[in-house]
């Protein structure tokens, strides 16, 4: 359906091993960055490794386009004995998304670090960033339940400390990071417990293998517990309402690079894993999984979409507003998945993509100007639109996408979500989306009014245009949001095949 022929420029040997190089690239890059002599080298390594990963992601997508599913047995041991990557369209899509965002974040990091982090720490910072990237890419590629846990932790451990580095600007980053660590670890441990029960019930760790063996014992209590713990664990990692308490401060006080990267990728990878288990390991049609979709996932998604939007409306600090809206948007995605029809899941996945693009852009724009004026509240940002037109124009575009205005990607995904809900006769979901769109209109309206139609308080610090190193990735993100707003065939194609992969994968 989507043609990646151009990628076959890559040597066949590389394409054959792309699935694992996709992870190994950033991983080795991290080591190199840690060894880098100075900040500049570290940055170049980071960019190079990210670009390499993105290239590999494209190769993998090309392979998936050719074969449907790419299996890669690591160590030459076929599963269930060995660990194997299993990459279908969904994994390929997530890989593309994460690595694409990573490249832009890496480009952005050059400037952001200089402004926010002490020089001698840049090497390690880039290392941490690349480790997180490798971990997330591993999570979306692996076909082994326990291996997924390991990569979740690879992605997390470093980022806890990276969030804490925000303390150089605001000490509130420290409690935020600590809380993030506690919650993240509890989530991961719950996930392990769940996997343990699945292992006890099936004797294997390979997801596909688990799925085949679950068919016979879907009503066992052990499986039920495994399901519950995996869902709660991943819910914590995905900031699924009401398990999102750790997110707002973590995003609000972390260094802007981390806010950009995490908001666009981390929760998304957790959502991916959740969907992977819900739809391909467990049988969504069967008993408790179905009940969960209808009576837990959908209501929670709805509550998140409403409540967290409200919190955003009444929040004075700009970055916290964005963080709350992130939780609300996760609610949209979960609503889409909960519809469990092809249309619904595809819409959910599309919205996932759209949200990554817009949130990355929003945090990047704020970082770009806030670096200079240590602004947090709306009042601090008043009039930034006049002082930094280019930066804030990109912000406005991304914000429009967040509101779901026509000619932006966010509008089309919202369109598809409502359409899917209507086709599934779930009018209440339409009502929820409408209501929370209204709230989004209000809080985004507050932002834009402050940025563009208010004058800064006399004597207040004035924003200045962000440097080119920020504007380039920023405008790429904004541009993509508009491009997909006019022609979303690429993301829709990916999302459709991703949803098909979820629905079609069960034995």
């Amino acid at each position, binding site marked *: 359906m989507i043609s990646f022929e151009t990628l076959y420029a890559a040597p066949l040997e590389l394409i054959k091993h792309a699935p694992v190089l996709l992870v*190994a690239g950033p991983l080795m890059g991290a080591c190199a960055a840690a060894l880098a002599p100075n900040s500049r080298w570290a940055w170049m390594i980071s960019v190079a490794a990210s670009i390499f990963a993105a290239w590999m992601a494209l190769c993998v997508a090309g392979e998936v386009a050719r074969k449907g599913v790419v299996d*890669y047995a690591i160590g030459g041991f076929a599963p269930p004995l060995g660990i194997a990557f299993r990459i279908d369209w969904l994994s390929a899509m997530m890989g593309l998304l994460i690595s694409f965002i990573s490249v832009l974040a890496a480009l952005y990091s050059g400037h952001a670090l200089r402004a926010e982090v002490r020089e001698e720490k840049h090497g390690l910072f880039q290392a*941490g960033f690349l480790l997180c990237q490798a971990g997330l890419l591993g999570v979306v590629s692996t076909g082994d339940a326990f291996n997924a846990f*390991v990569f979740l932790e690879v992605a997390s451990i470093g980022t806890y400390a990276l969030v804490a580095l925000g303390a150089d600007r605001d000490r509130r980053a420290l409690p935020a990071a600590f809380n993030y660590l506690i919650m993240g670890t509890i989530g991961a441990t719950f996930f392990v417990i769940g996997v343990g029960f699945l292992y006890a019930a099936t004797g294997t760790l390979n997801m596909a293998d688990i799925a085949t063996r679950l068919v016979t014992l879907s009503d066992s209590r052990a499986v039920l*517990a495994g399901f519950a713990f995996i869902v709660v664990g991943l819910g914590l990692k995905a900031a699924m309402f009401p398990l999102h308490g750790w997110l707002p401060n973590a995003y609000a006080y972390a260094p802007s690079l981390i806010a950009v990267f995490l908001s666009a990728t981390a929760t998304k990878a957790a959502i991916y894993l959740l969907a992977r288990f819900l739809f391909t390991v467990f049988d969504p049609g069967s008993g408790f999984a179905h009940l969960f979709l209808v009576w837990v996932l959908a209501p929670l998604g709805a509550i998140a979409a409403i409540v967290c939007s409200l919190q955003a409306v009444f929040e004075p600090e700009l970055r916290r507003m964005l963080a709350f809206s992130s939780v609300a948007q996760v609610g949209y995605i979960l609503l889409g998945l909960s519809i469990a029809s092809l249309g619904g899941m595809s819409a959910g996945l599309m919205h996932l993509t759209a949200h990554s693009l817009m949130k990355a852009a929003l945090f990047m724009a704020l970082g770009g100007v806030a670096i200079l004026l240590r602004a947090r509240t709306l009042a601090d940002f008043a009039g930034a639109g006049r002082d930094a037109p280019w930066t804030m124009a990109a912000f406005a575009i991304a914000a429009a996408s967040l509101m779901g205005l026509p000619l932006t990607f966010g509008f089309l995904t919202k369109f598809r979500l409502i359409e899917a809900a209507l086709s599934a006769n779930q009018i209440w979901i339409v009502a929820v989306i409408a209501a929370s769109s209204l709230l989004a209109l209000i809080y985004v309206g507050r932002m834009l009014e402050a940025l563009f139609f208010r004058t800064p308080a006399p004597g207040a610090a004035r924003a200045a245009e962000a440097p080119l190193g920020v504007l380039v990735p920023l405008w790429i993100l904004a541009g993509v949001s508009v491009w997909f707003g006019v022609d979303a065939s690429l993301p829709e194609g990916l999302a459709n095949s991703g949803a098909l992969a979820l629905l079609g994968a069960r034995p």
Partner: protein
Amino acid sequence: MSGAISFLDANLAIDLALLAMLVVLAAAIAMTRKLLAAILLMGVYSLVSAVWLVVMDAPDVAFTEAVVGAGVSTIVLLGAILLTRAEAEKTGWGRLIAPALIAVATGALLVYAALDLPSFGDPTSPANAYVGRTYLEVASRDTGAANVVTAVLASYRGFDTLGETTVIFAAGVGVALALGFGERAAPASRLMAGATGDHNVVLRVAAKLLIPIIALFAFYVQFHGDLGPGGGFQAGVILAVAVILHALVFGLRETMTAVKPSFARGVAALGVLLYSGIGVVCIVNGGGFLDYGHLFTAEIEAQIPPGLLGDPGATHHWGQHFGIFFIELGVLFTVAATMVTIFYGFAGRSPGGEAKL
């Protein structure tokens, strides 16, 4: 069920007794408000669970739990509470209700599910009958390692272990980012002054003797890994302990001149590089990632003398042998270096250090 009963007499009694001890310890930790007590009890908890693990036929895990729980964790925890209030604030009963409810509810679900599991020790349970059993059958044939745990760890699930090593490295990066590289360490940080009188000759001599022995033991554990319990991780921790001991006795500054923080960080990174590099080498030689079977090209394989590992008759898996050897080496590097880095971080930040700056 007679098998279970006879088993009950012997092991189950010990097993349950140990578990009971653990429960008591956990309760004690929950009760106490003295942080020091909590930490020490935590160490004891690890030791007891290590013993329990031995009873459960998991010597490798027991070994690790011992060195980590009773060793590293305790050291780090102690480093963290130096000069803070030793008492935790009293938490009112009201504050305990919600957590209690959460714990009880979760526990209830777990028990409810656990009672559905096959009975304890059942050899035919899915867990024990499927993949686990297969490993027992094929591991030594595939890898030539007697210790199936090592075989699975380093070979079948070598990718997990790469991830594990990466996690350690990430932790090192994290701590170094948060606490710096010990550059704020004092000539003889209060940390040691607490542990020893400053010029305790006996101790210095003892240390001078002890440190090489510890290091030697570390290397024994390292290379003995594929025959008995042990491996890169345990060895790495022990090696790090040697360095830490040196610091405790001779002072952080001296140790830092011997083992530079930058050097430690570099070695940590190199360890992961070595591990993943092996994987890439396997690719270059036409195999899959970490496919030790292709670690060597055929011509190199041919040049390896058959008697290299003694026992000339045995059919050899050079690839697997050396693959496991190298990656365990990588683990050793990363773990040891990271542990040292972490220690530097905490010791360097220890208020004793600051006071002297």
